[in-house]
């Protein structure tokens, strides 16, 4: 398994998209830290990049990679290796390459310029987000045979999690504004990995605002150890569940 992952990883690194992604992140992060007068403002811009770019690139790259290595996968399956193992190796190599790109492109600048608690949370949630999105992309790709359809579904998923979901949340909050919704919003964040990442970072960045009104409740919850376990646990679920579904469907699939 290790050998297989290694070869796929070499292959991914050789196709240069990942290198370009690393370069892009590195350039943007360095530029932001050098241009903005204080590092917290740079972190804020990085957060925006993290919430848009990282899910998008992770999802699109994983899907395209899956379709491109379809023939390779078929070839591998002719060997005595189990299907789940092959898919897991594919997932692992994609995930590792994307996480490496994030660590080099964003992790190093953050470490250099703003190695506080906020920066650490930013990188950690970035890793979680990358893995969760890759996992979602694999599930969508395995489910649809047609490449165009697969990419379409993945784009729609990204659009849903990045934008539409928050719109729905806001609509719900306004429709039911007569009811106490504080606890309910906590549940709502769990259904979107991007929101989960956003809320974790926000708690480090906007402490003063969050201590007002209902914010104090969020702070109490997410700031406590239960909250950290909750966030971590849900993020892990977002990584493992789609991966499991992808592997299951890949196992039964007529290739």
């Amino acid at each position, binding site marked *: 398994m290790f050998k297989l992952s290694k070869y796929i990883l070499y292959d991914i690194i050789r196709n240069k998209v990942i290198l370009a992604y690393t370069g892009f992140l590195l350039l943007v992060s360095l530029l932001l830290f050098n241009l903005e007068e204080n590092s917290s403002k740079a972190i804020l811009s990085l957060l925006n990049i993290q919430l848009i770019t990282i899910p998008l690139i992770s999802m699109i790259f994983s899907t395209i990679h899956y379709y491109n290595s379809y023939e390779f996968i078929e070839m591998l399956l002719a060997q005595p290796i189990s299907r789940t193992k092959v898919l897991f190796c594919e997932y692992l190599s994609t995930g590792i390459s994307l996480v490496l790109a994030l660590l080099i492109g964003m992790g190093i600048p953050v470490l250099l310029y703003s190695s506080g608690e906020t920066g650490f949370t930013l990188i950690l949630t970035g890793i979680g987000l990358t893995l969760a999105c890759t996992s979602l992309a694999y599930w969508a790709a395995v489910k649809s045979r047609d490449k165009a359809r697969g990419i379409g579904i993945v784009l729609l998923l990204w659009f849903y999690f990045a934008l539409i979901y928050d719109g729905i949340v806001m609509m719900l909050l306004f429709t039911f504004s007569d009811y106490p919704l504080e606890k309910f919003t906590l549940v709502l964040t769990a259904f979107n990995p991007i929101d989960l990442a956003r809320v974790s970072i926000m708690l480090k*960045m*906007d402490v*003063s*605002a969050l201590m007002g009104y209902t914010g104090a409740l969020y702070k109490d919850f997410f700031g406590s150890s239960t909250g950290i376990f909750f966030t971590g646990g849900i993020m892990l679920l977002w990584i493992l569940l789609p991966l499991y579904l992808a592997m299951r469907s890949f196992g039964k699939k007529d290739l």
Partner: protein
Amino acid sequence: MRTLNRTQIQRFSGIILSLLFLMPLGGRTIYVGETQVVKSIKAGIQTAKPGDTVLVEGGLYKEGNLIINKSIALIGKNQPVLDGENQYEIITLSGKNICVSGFKFLNSGASAMNDFASIKCIDATSVLVSDNIIVNAYFAIHISNTIDAQVKNNIIEGHSKSEQNTGNGIHLWKCNHAMIVGNQISGHRDGIYFEFVTESQIQNNYSTKNIRYGLHFMFSHNDFYSHNDFKNNGAGVAVMYSHNVQMENNTFEDNWGASAYGILLKDISDSKIQANYFIRNTVGIHMEGSSRMVVEKNKFQDNGWALKVQASCNDNQFQFNNFTGNTFDVATNGTMMLNTFTSNYWDKYEGYDLNKDSYGDIPYHPVSMYAMIVEENPVCLILLRSILISILDKAEKAIPSITPENLVDEKPKMIPNRI
């Protein structure tokens, strides 16, 4: 202000003269202590005549309630301890030209019926309370109906956890020409409390970890407070129902909570807030029913909301302030805005300056759409920093619909104001 200062300086020099020069020269000094002829403070006060000094040597004194009603100076040498045994008010004084200085007050009594204090001053003129340490009191220093009270360099420390079980650190009621200078107050209900106190000054105090307000003003006009530090109080500072209050060079920091404000202004008029520093408060300044205020040259940094200006405020001026790193710069609760904003520096400003006059060429609208949404439905705070929100904000900036159109800084500064 100028005339007020002059009268105060006259009064101040008057008290210094009377206390430092007249008493030691004109009066006797009565020594109280274990090794002295007079063993108890009570006896010392009794034998003293107006103008005398009662000098108390270091040691522990449990004498219940001491009453001073003549012009004497009660001075502690080596910080003698006066213990109220949790049941007595330690010193009660009234009269004129009285000084209490250099003691350590412990455990004065608490009562729901009487406002017990470590030092209580009623119906007095020219009183000096200085250099005392007051620990575990109900009210620490309670002054009422007094002209020219001076409270200086005292350290006041309370241990109460709930608002009901404690009084205020320095409590003034119906006084004028008071001076509160250089005190450190913590752990009381309100650090400094003013009600019906006029022509007074509060300077260089440090008020922290009080259960309610660091400083609480009610119906107190023509007062001046400067160079104070209010940190981490339950609800920050409140200034209510007063006019002509000057607030300068104060620091308001770390006042966190659902109803915590750097300054809460309620029904204030003709006052000035200048060169203060607001950092990491949930709300920097919350303003309602206030008019004709000038808010200038203040620094607002890393607050949740730098300013909350309710629609009930009018004719206020906000100028030459610096806003950096705040989650929300300005929030309001209506579309009407009768206040002026000009020449402030906003770090969220995205305009340009083509004619290089250091003012941005396009006006800045400090109220974001999201700030209005959160004002209406606070639960929406969970969507902070969401991409959807930034898109909505951008759209609103282009075509304003729910943010107040005339809440605008026509001349935003490109670089921070020098303060």
